[in-house]
């Protein structure tokens, strides 16, 4: 008997069919991967199972009995728990408060904190999920926050645990810890549904895998019987051949140079709240990027990458040190001047810095060029030229949009990013700063952007690739620098790092072995 069986589930959002008669079965105490590209309908399907969305058609059975959920409360009552991609935690409340909210132990009319704390401690010990019950959630690491989410579900008696892309926010070592936790839960009889679009993780942890594509189920199989290439093809619907990187020419001229750049104190333009925060500054960073090479910056997000990006494009002035572009000091030039010198940026925060989501596709494609010919003449925008330019870029960079007048906010994340990439790369830059260029994108779009960056490298551009995705950094970079707590803890040719080295360095261990 299946722990969960979903039959012919259909869900529409307006004209979009997110799930189209999807069948899905999970056996008790298995780890089942739900694999698919972005927009394939994985999260939608699981939100239906968790009662967050109402299905338009289909049946759900839990332990063989038909169920109908009108909200998460019903799903929880049937032993279903979900850890969302964006954590459902109130940062200012304590770990214990977050875990017991909605199911509080009581003493009379009061909340029984002593008992609540004891409950948290008991479950966290049973599954080896170490957290401090009295810490405020905003003060603990992302990995620990995830444990809080898992505890929250377990304490509510979850027998089926849905994890929505749980590894996206974790450092490689933390992923290992999470997998250990998942195995322990499985041994304890918990059924786990693991949503991901990463093949490696699917192979590493799951017993069986179901692949969704465009809202339909395309396959369910034992993970042992599926090769990564097969799964990739099922997911994308076509064959994916990783792009080849041709040999390195180490003697290109230096395009970008950072000399002892430090950023101390104060929250800058890019300050964000939440997260571990606090140490995300730069400490005496020196590096060079040559023409025709990709320098990859590896590191867990929040270790100074954002500040690095901001310093180079002029959004933030370093406290000390210099930034040189083709030998010229650009430290105090400001974003406008730096852009005019041929620096292109694919910003890490696409929505806030890459696009204006209420503006049209065509308008977004001239952002930064809006005052210069041919898009403006005598201070007046030239709509014809703008549209011509937009049509060209959209075509060249395969941006899927209904029209050029469409607001960019209505495009998918992948197409928004292609638009940003198209705008930036078509400006004829000398230096390209690509920060988290494929974050949140699926295999198809990621592959496309990788090819574009490699093409730029062939053309002799200098590229600084900042990415938290280890595979991406390794696949594209000629040299790799690892950032940890605002410092470059290692900088070597890419071949000289093993994956394990990088993982340790990113986690702040093995600093001693760094060259």
């Amino acid at each position: 008997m299946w722990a969960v069986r979903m039959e012919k589930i259909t869900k529409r959002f307006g004209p979009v069919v997110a799930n189209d008669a999807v069948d899905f079965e999970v056996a008790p105490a298995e780890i089942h991967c739900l694999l698919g590209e972005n927009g394939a309908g994985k999260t939608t399907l699981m939100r239906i199972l968790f009662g967050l969305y109402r299905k338009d058609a289909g049946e759900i059975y839990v332990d063989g009995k038909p169920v109908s959920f009108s909200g998460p409360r019903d799903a929880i009552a049937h032993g279903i728990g979900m850890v969302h991609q964006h954590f459902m935690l109130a940062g200012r409340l304590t770990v214990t408060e977050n875990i017991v909210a909605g199911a509080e132990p009581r003493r009379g009319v009061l909340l029984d904190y002593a008992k609540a704390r004891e409950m948290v401690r008991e479950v966290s010990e049973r599954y080896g999920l170490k957290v401090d019950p009295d810490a405020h959630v905003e003060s603990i690491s992302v990995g620990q926050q995830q444990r809080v989410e898992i505890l929250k579900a377990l304490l509510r008696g979850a027998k089926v645990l849905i994890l929505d892309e749980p590894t996206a926010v974790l450092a490689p070592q933390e992923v290992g810890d999470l997998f250990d936790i998942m195995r322990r839960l499985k041994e304890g009889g918990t059924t786990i549904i693991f949503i991901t679009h990463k093949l490696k993780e699917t192979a590493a942890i799951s017993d069986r895998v179901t692949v969704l594509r465009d809202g339909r189920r395309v396959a369910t199989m034992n993970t042992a019987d599926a090769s990564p290439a097969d799964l990739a093809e099922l997911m994308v619907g076509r064959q994916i051949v990783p792009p080849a990187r041709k040999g390195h020419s180490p003697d290109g001229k230096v395009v970008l140079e950072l000399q002892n750049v430090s950023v101390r104190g104060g929250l800058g333009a890019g300050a964000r709240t939440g997260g571990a925060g606090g140490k995300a500054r730069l400490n005496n960073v020196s590096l060079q990027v040559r023409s025709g090479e990709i320098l990859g910056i590896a590191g867990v997000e929040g270790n100074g990458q954002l500040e690095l990006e901001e310093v180079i494009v002029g959004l933030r002035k370093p406290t000390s040190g210099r930034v040189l572009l083709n030998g010229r000091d650009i430290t105090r030039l400001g974003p406008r001047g730096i852009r005019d010198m041929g620096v292109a940026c694919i910003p890490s925060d696409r929505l806030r810095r890459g696009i204006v989501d209420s503006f049209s596709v065509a308008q977004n494609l001239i952002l930064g060029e809006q005052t210069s010919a041919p898009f403006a003449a005598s201070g007046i925008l030239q709509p014809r030229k703008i549209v011509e330019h937009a049509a060209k870029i959209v075509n060249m960079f395969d941006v899927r949009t209904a029209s050029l007048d469409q607001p960019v906010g209505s495009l998918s994340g992948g197409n928004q990013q292609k638009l940003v990439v198209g705008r930036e790369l078509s400006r004829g830059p000398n230096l390209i700063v690509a920060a988290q260029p494929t974050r949140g994108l699926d295999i198809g779009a990621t592959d496309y952007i990788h090819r574009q960056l490699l093409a730029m490298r062939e053309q002799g551009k200098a590229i600084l690739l900042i990415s938290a995705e280890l595979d991406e950094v390794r696949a594209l970079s000629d040299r790799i620098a690892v950032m940890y707590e605002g410092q470059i803890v290692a900088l070597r040719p890419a071949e000289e790092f093993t994956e394990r080295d990088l993982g340790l360095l990113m986690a702040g261990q093995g600093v001693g072995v760094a060259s």
Partner: protein
Amino acid sequence: MREILDVIFDINNVTATIRMATPIALAAMGGAFSERSGVINIGLEGMILTGAFCGVLGSYISGSPWLGVLFAVVGGGLMGATLAVFAIKLKADHVVSGVGLNILALGLTSWLMQVLWKNRGTSVSVNGLPMFSIPVVRDVPVLGTILGTHSPLVYMMLILIFLGWVVMFKTPLGLRIRMAGEHPEAADTVGINVHAVQYFSVILSGCLAGLGGAYLSLAQLNWFSMNMSAGRGYMALAANIFGQWNPIGGLGASFLFAFTDALQMRIQTSPIKLPTDIIQMLPYILTILVLAGAVIRSRPPAALGRHYESGRAA
């Protein structure tokens, strides 16, 4: 110099501070509940005014000031419910709704006065609440002067503030309120009915502000006059922020505001010669200073002012 110190440290100032802090502290606690649940409440001013009017109306109709107090609480609660419907159900902007409510309250009370008592300025006098003396305590020196004899609403306020603090930080309901205002999606996914929690909090907010209004019209005076809340709702708003959305913190902040108010009244009748206009400005200047200083450092609930709809979790 001696004179100035005598004026400042006059024990009667303390007594007056407690008295004058009462409506502000009650409304500030209302603000704390509403805003902790995620709903901005600029409408406290209108809720106090409505409470003050309904208090007099209740006492006028029934002859009992205690029924007046009940009227005030219900009237304030209705204003809270109005804000809740606009801000939660209809998803109107919280600030605009609150300001609208204040204008509505001013217009409605003035008009009703005209209809009922043929006077737009003040109502008729009604039975007010008698003073209450605590036996024994009233005979203790100093303490007796400060706490011995007050309107019963003052004692009620002190008890309610403590109870409010317990509810907010020591009960499941309080945790749910705080979670709704910090992260409504999180609350929703653990089965907390976010809108129900918000309705409760906003209506409670109105009831508390209404009770504060009753203090003005049934305890401090025994009639209603046009716009008699005179900005106390805004002071309560400030006190709530200064008090970090905590009923006890709000009480502390209300004491501070009330103390300057008491002081300015005391100075006016003292031998210190300062232009009256400047003296009367004191509480307001302090409000601005405190807000300018405190607001920068204060952290409102994370989801304050946001509209939440279940089933669209991000």
